[in-house]
């Protein structure tokens, strides 16, 4: 415990001192350098730590993974497309791929839809800040915590016994049989997705709500004075003006759905046909000791995300052009 305390103090005091020292050091070293060269060298020295981290932890590994995905389990001999053939012929991975598609569609639709609905609704009540805090509270909780919270919502006891799970208590109260929500495929995948929806709706709501506040009130009032109903105002003015923000949250949800891991890992470990590709990759890597196959899965994930990447870059370029 004592050594840890010392370590913690060293970290909290020493680390910032070291980082500040880096900038002071490069500026001192640059002083005798001719002015013209200073301008050329300085930006790269300021960027150097960032570029080193990005290169080591993101750029190099990504390219290396692509190479590894064509190699055998010892990362020595090239095996062509074998790992991809395995991916496309193995029943488990195909199930997880299918599940990711379900995740992608349902999580994106529900989180964005509910986020939009809530953003529009709370805009009209006086206790908006409090209501919003509650909706985006789950974002502060870990997926592990959320998984445990929801295991007790989905909890099952045989018929006749008192139900301790909230959902089964509600279901039996209105006269139905209790369900094993996390075991029955394919609805169990939906049960897991609902947990993710619970977490991510707050994120969508906050961004959409911010965009909503940016729409001019006069414009909406003018439409209302002209006799437009609330629904017409929403469809004709609010929705079109919110589209860019909706695009942002939708792409974020698509990526979140493709990378889904924690909830599945904690709640079902991928059993009962609930596996997703990120979890399948974890299994190939640690349980089956197959880095080649794991890399192939990662590359599939990457390929699925490339369209989002291109959309993001294009949007960024457009914004830069406006600036």
């Amino acid at each position, binding site marked *: 415990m004592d050594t840890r305390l010392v370590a913690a103090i060293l970290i909290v005091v020493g680390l910032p001192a070291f980082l500040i020292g880096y900038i002071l050091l490069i500026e001192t070293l640059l002083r005798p350098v001719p002015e013209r060269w200073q301008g050329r060298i300085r*930006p790269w020295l300021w960027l150097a730590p960032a570029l080193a981290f990005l290169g080591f932890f993101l750029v190099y590994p990504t390219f290396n993974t692509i190479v590894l995905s064509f190699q055998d389990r010892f990362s020595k001999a090239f095996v062509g497309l074998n790992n991809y053939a395995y991916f496309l012929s193995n029943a488990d991975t195909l199930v997880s791929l299918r599940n990711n598609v379900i995740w992608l569609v349902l999580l994106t639709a529900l989180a964005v839809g509910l986020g939009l609905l809530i953003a529009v609704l709370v805009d009209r009540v006086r206790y908006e800040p409090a209501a919003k805090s509650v909706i985006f509270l789950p974002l502060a909780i870990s997926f592990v915590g959320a998984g445990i919270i929801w295991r007790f919502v989905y909890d099952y006891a045989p018929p006749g016994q008192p139900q*301790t799970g909230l959902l089964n208590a509600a279901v039996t109260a209105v006269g139905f049989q209790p369900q094993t929500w996390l075991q029955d495929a394919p609805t169990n995948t939906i049960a897991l997705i609902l947990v993710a929806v619970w977490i991510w709706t707050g994120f969508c709501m906050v961004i959409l709500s911010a965009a909503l506040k940016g729409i001019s009130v006069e414009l909406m009032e003018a439409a209302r004075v002209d006799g437009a109903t609330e629904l017409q105002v929403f469809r004709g003015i609010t929705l079109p003006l919110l589209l860019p923000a909706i695009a942002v949250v939708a792409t974020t949800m698509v990526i979140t759905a*493709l*990378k889904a891991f924690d909830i599945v890992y*904690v709640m079902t470990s991928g059993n009962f046909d609930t596996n997703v590709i990120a979890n399948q*990759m974890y299994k190939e890597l640690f349980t089956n000791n197959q880095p080649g196959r794991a890399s192939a899965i990662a590359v599939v994930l990457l390929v699925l995300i490339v369209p989002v990447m291109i959309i*993001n870059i294009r949007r960024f370029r457009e914004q830069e052009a406006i600036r």
Partner: protein
Amino acid sequence: MTASAATDSTTIVANRGRRTIRWRRLLLHGAVIGLVVIWLLPTIGLFINSVRPPIDVANSGWWTALFPPWDFTIANYEQVLARNGIANAFVNSVLITLPATIIPIAVASFAAYAFSWMHFRGRDWIFVVLVALLVIPLQTTFVPLLTLLGPKGIHLLGAGPGAFVAVWLAHTGYGLPFAIFLVTGYMRGLPKEVFESAAIDGAGHASAFFRLALPMSVPVLAALAIFQFLFVWNDLLVALMFIGAQNAGNLPLTIAIANLSTSLGGDWQLLMAAAFISMALPLVVFFALQRYFVRGITGGAVKG
């Protein structure tokens, strides 16, 4: 006569209109409050169950505890803190999270300053690559990094203290694209005149950075700090990769609790207490700094 009839009918219409408006208001409040209750219930249920005796938890739903006779206890918390390495994991989580929050903020603000206030060839091009890196799935990086940092490489991972260093650096690398993106967006918007007049007064880049850019960027740095803190504190995947599920001494809370959840078949009340312990710090941070949290979300909306 006709005039009064006309007023009568308009009052009727107005009354009817008012009545539908009142119904609409009621429906609106009903919908909002309903959603809020749905969002709160699962967490409330967990909390209430975590302060109930084990027998009650196993035999009745948490909502029954709301009615007398009340029977609450903190025994679950005492037990889980004493027995299952949760206290140790809490300390580990703090030790992992602090540097993994401080390092990326510093490195990102250096880079953001360079992107905002220095001119160099390739600047825009590098920034586009950065936007692309925002969405790279972490999974893509694991196999090569495990080789480089693992037993076949420099052997940093697993049970030793080196694993913490690996996790700090990895979280820095993973968090940087978003961090740089967010801070650069803010620093670029700072008033140009301030930096120009500082340069005329002979201030170098170091003092412009520490005396002007950093203090003026405090709101965005706070937003980033909260984000990175929550991201690292709540992370399971990176810790699983670089520390592993089995190295008991090094486990952060997320892994320790995930392990509990697979091993504790019957002792649910312990799991719930543990889960709530893991949420305590994020919830405090969240409620104390909510304003910055929202700013972080809306400011960096392209994060993956």
